[in-house]
């Protein structure tokens, strides 16, 4: 809401007061407001207020050629853009019944996992910052930047890669890329101790995060929570494992689980997941050179490409949870409808509103960040 449109709410005869977190607040990865009603330092109710990042992408996509939308979709989630590109391409391929060459599938998984690492590093920093620790956020962003260097080398872009295309990926990997990826993974593993010391086994942080913002499994299922937040409640559900796409079935990885469902569990799940991604990438580095062949099956001239009539609902596991696109084609050269089911759309709104009730004001920011909500996924 624009400031000039805001009317001061007076709450007479009580100690209650309103406090706005956001729309610019380090507790969340984007512009997003959370309006609290407080009594002293206890939260009486919280109200999520989205729309600051609404760019009408779903509407825009209906007015653009199938391939032009590739430049839009990564913008829906800045910290973790690759799943957006991949899942959009997957829906189009599903409707068109396009075979994606195996090599392209491996390259896609490589990007997806690298993107997950970048996103989780970002979250570590952000989460720590909400507890007053700023060093991990510098580290997280700096180490994420090294992943962005790799993306730049692979795709030509640091943040918006626009690298996946229905039918595969736009170019093959550059020479020596896998070596540099391998170096990066080595580096990340040497950093594990640093992060553990600084954050995950730092008693100050552990005590601060434990038992805060508890979401039990029953609530999580009732409210449709997915991703690391669900796994932190003890349910080992992961789209990569349970509804596999691309070549995930051929990969060997664990699904990290915690059972307490609090802020600490959530960040520990992410920590373990990051190193599972490292494990996956190691397998890819080993296997990719032996997967020969093209990286793209040709699509028709994009200026005159009528995608077959049909609809497809495809899901991937993004760093935030279950990300899905529902794409409908009426047989035309533009999508008839693209519905983006943002991975954060559950835990950024209703779950957060419910969880904040009864919390203390100093914990709200940590709860927000521990859920790893991505506002542009809500706004689209």
């Amino acid at each position, binding site marked *: *809401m*624009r400031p000039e*449109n805001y009317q001061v709410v007076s709450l007479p005869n009580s100690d209650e007061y309103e406090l706005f977190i956001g729309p610019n607040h380090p507790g969340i990865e984007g512009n997003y407001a959370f309006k609290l009603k407080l009594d002293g330092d206890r939260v009486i109710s919280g109200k999520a*207020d*989205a*729309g600051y990042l*609404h760019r*009408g992408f*779903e*509407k*825009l996509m*209906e*007015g653009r*050629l199938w391939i032009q939308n590739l430049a839009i979709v990564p913008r829906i989630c800045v910290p973790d853009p690759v799943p957006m590109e991949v899942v959009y391409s997957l829906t189009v391929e599903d409707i068109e019944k396009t075979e994606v060459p195996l090599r392209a599938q491996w390259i896609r998984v490589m990007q997806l996992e690298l993107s997950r690492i970048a996103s989780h590093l970002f979250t570590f920093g952000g989460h720590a910052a909400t507890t007053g620790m700023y060093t991990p956020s510098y580290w997280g962003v700096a180490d994420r930047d090294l992943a962005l260097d790799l993306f730049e080398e692979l795709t030509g872009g640091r943040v918006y890669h626009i690298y996946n295309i229905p039918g595969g990926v736009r170019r093959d990997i550059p020479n020596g890329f896998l070596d540099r990826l391998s170096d990066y993974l080595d580096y990340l593993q040497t950093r594990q101790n640093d992060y553990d010391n600084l954050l995950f086994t730092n008693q100050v942080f552990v005590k601060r995060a434990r038992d805060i913002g508890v979401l039990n499994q029953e609530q999580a*299922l*009732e*409210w*449709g929570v*997915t991703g690391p937040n669900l796994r932190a409640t003890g*349910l080992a*559900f992961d789209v990569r494992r*349970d*509804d596999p796409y691309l070549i995930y079935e051929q990969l060997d990885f664990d699904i990290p689980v915690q059972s307490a469902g609090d802020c600490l569990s959530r960040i520990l799940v992410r920590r373990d997941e990051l190193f599972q991604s490292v494990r996956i990438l190691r397998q890819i580095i080993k296997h990719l050179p032996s997967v020969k062949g093209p990286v793209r099956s040709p699509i028709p001239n994009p*200026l005159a490409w009528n995608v077959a009539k049909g*609809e497809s*609902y495809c*899901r991937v596991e993004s760093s935030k949870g*279950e990300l*899905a696109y*529902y794409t*409908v084609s009426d047989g035309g*050269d533009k999508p*008839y*409808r693209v*519905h983006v*089911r943002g991975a954060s*759309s*559950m835990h950024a*709104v*209703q779950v957060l509103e419910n969880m904040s009730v009864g919390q203390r004001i100093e914990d709200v920011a940590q709860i927000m960040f521990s859920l790893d909500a991505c506002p542009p996924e*809500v*706004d689209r």
Partner: protein
Amino acid sequence: MKCDEINAWLDALLSEINEIEVTRKSERRVRVDVPASSLPALLELLKGKASYVHLSAISCVDWPGDEEFELVYHCWSYEAKSLLSAHTRIPRNSAEEFAHYVSVYDIYKPAAFFERDIYEMFGVYFESSPYMEKFILTEWNGPPPMRKDFDAEAYVNDTFNWADYHPQWLQDIEEEGGGIAIRPEDIRL
């Protein structure tokens, strides 16, 4: 409970509902077409008896030619590892008057988010949904923008101005007798 058992059970369940059409698209994807009147009952059964406890999304598609909205409820079963998409159609009504349907919030809590979104973007009012108010488009007073009859590009062109550049190189070319020949808005495909 085994996946096969659930699937068998599901088939038995689905046969109980009138006018239902079931298409198995793949191992993990089922499409169900159901009349609007039977949909809540179907979801009730799916959640209560067939382990489809996770409502992944509700998608809305506008079909002005048919004067209908299509609502798609994507439900996931953690046990059967299968995604069931229940499609239904409701009358569209004109832009001034909202289309109406019932909320499934009492079955699936996540529905509240999607129903509010569809209410805002398409103008479908969900009876007894907890939050039928503005969320994303707080300061928007126009028609529900995701309806096909709202032309976003025309709105943008009417509301905003194109940047008016006139750099030196362009002035030089104009002096030579050339200049801007095709503006981007002239050839949008």
